[in-house]
């Protein structure tokens, strides 16, 4: 095995690994990126009912209701301009409460957001940045600025 051959085979292997990785990454990006939208976006734009989305906003005061089955929760998130109802089955995160910022992931169908996941951060003072920006975009932000 000459040094030159060794280098060539190493380079070949590296090129193969990089090409494979790039192909994997590109296809995965195409299928698996989830875009964040504000409630205003959801109300004003069109979405396919199968597309996975994230929505974030403040949970409206007094909007949290248990549904008949005892485990599904319905609540409304708002960016202060528009609001969207969310349905979620399961136990909400510990830091979920009315007035708090949350992010939900799921699909938007017939005006209702079906969440498969609800995220609230592990920090009392937390407002997800996407939520803060969405509220700032409506001009209603009364935060740190």
């Amino acid at each position, binding site marked *: 095995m000459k040094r030159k051959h060794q280098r060539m085979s190493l380079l070949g*292997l590296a090129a193969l690994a990089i090409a494979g990785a790039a192909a994997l990454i590109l296809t995965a990006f195409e299928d698996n990126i989830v*875009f*964040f939208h504000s409630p205003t976006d959801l109300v004003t734009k069109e979405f396919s009912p199968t597309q996975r989305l994230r929505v974030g906003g403040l949970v409206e005061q007094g909007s949290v209701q248990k549904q008949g089955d005892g*485990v599904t929760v319905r609540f409304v998130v708002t960016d202060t301009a528009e609001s969207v109802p969310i349905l979620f089955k399961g*136990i909400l995160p510990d830091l979920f409460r009315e007035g708090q910022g949350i992010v939900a992931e799921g699909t938007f169908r017939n005006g209702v957001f079906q969440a498969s996941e609800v995220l609230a951060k*592990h920090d009392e003072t937390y407002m997800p940045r*996407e939520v803060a920006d969405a509220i700032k975009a409506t001009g209603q932000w009364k935060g740190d600025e």
Partner: protein
Amino acid sequence: MTAEIGHFALILALVTAVVQGVPTLIGAQRRDALWMALAVPAALLQFLLIALAFAALTKAFVTSDFSVMTVAMNSHTAKPMLYKVAGVWGNHEGSMLLWVLVLSLFGAAIALFGRNLRPSLKVRVLAIQGLLGAGFLTFILFTSNPFARLFPVPIDGQDLNPLLQDPGLAFHPPLLYLGYVGLSTTFSFAVAALIEGRVDPAWARWVRPWTLASWAFLTAGIVLGSWWAYYELGWGGWWFWDPVENASFMPWLAATALLHSAIVSEKRDALKSWTVFLAIIAFAFSLLGTFLVRSGVLTSVHAFASDPTRGVFILALLIVTVGGAFAFYAWRGPALKSSGVFHPISREGGLVLNNFLLTAAAAAVLLGTLYPLILDVLNAGKISVGAPYFDSVFIPMMVPLIIAMGVGPMLNWKRGSLKTATYKLKWAALIAVLSGFGVWLAIDRASALAAFGMTLAAWLLLATLYELADRIHLFRSNPSESLRRLRRQPRARWGMTLAHGGLALLIAGMTASSAWKTEKIEAMAAGDTVTLAAYTLTFKGAEQVRGPNYMATRGTFEVQRGSTGTPFILHPEKRVYDVQGQTTEAAIQPTFLGDIYAVVGDTQDGGKTFVTRLYFNPLVPWMWTGALVMVLGGLISLSDRRHRVGAPVARRQPGSATPAPAE
């Protein structure tokens, strides 16, 4: 007073770090023995000073000295002692102090245990450690002083985030930092070697134990964090591809690659330039992780500091450190000629494949972690890259790696025969395929992918065991000869067998728990029954219980396997802390085949009906066991006497079985 002592100690540590870094480097260049002699005492002194500062902060936490701002913000008199101590690093300032403490600990360890290092190399390694320390001490003193005073002094503190009040998380940061920051040693070794323009097998031999130690700690730290997420977050999952998890996983991937390429550099004097590159990259990932977590640029479940000046400072440190190292690499790297030549089908070839796949995987994780940030900066939309991306990129890259892991150790150095290796492993492959097929038939919900995962796990385990059996001539020689050979196996080989075998268990656990998890979400009143996999869970109601600094809603489940098993009790809790926040404490009963996992949620009718979330997570205990076995493998390999030999030893005479003398 204590806080001021701590603060002064930190300032002195900064001065010492500069002394450790600057005159020593000049001295090493000029071969000035006096200046070079500064390195060792400075490294030890820097460690002592930072340890003093750390002790001062610990005292402030233990005695609840709320005149210190960090303590007031993150502690409380009613908090149990363990969490008062763990609270020292449960906040930004304290965790950065722990960071530099670990950094200086490694510096001191090199000063103490590096007696056999070439003097110029040792001085330069210590100098680089000193410069790193100086950078981070400056960061602490100017942007995150843990000893800042607060006036007026509050009556009581704001308490530690209750999610962090947990034994798993108390030890997660120290272990993780020992791994993360431990990679600074290999970085310093790499930069020092580049300054000298000399990388030889002796260098690789010195680097290996430090890589191994960091790798073992990093593995333990990541697993502890994952375990914590599993039982504390109450979602029944153990890995979320969260940016902060990725921040610790990328250095792990790079360290694993480094661990393997350093072997080639040591044994075969090849891949030298690549090993040096990996050593730099691994620590660069550690710094990147620190930046991501500490700057708060990512929306993540557990990034707790978000202050732009801190982010910018760490980013600057990252750029200077990594940029500087790469500049050296560009300058000196081409001079690093490897002498070992090898055929692609050889042990080296296998390790090269391992390295390509691991670095490609690390790059994919990096891209997925940073992509949302990049788009955000470019104002191109807000996106999240979640588990589906990582699963569909990461898993296909791991498949060839795991297949190769079975074959690689069977190949000879320099030139191996794929034919011989595959011939030897035919039974392992056959049994693995059959067991995957068996799983596919036996479990009615088995997807082909999950069955393939189990095949890979079985393949790795069997091939690893076969390799051990082959080495000790099991069934080929008489049993006493095999036993003799078994005892003579170097510990580093045991380390490999354990680490690879542990990974096999880990893969089985990960595959099974992802593919065959059973989940039930029910509203339950006392007396209600739910069937979960082979178990029947009866809800016995919930009561209010008082803890040291919280009130808990404590549910009681009676669980029975089938109709004849011995019943046992599970007590999940939902805790509301007096000062702030609430947590979910899942109750978990591990069994050989899986975990029974129960969470109790809110009540809607004043304490009669509760929302409950019940899981059967198959083979999760295998996962934790596998990870522990991997760590154990790392530690056993670390204890190999050969690692402690300082200078390169002449190749042992064939046939002589005496181990090389230690020290």
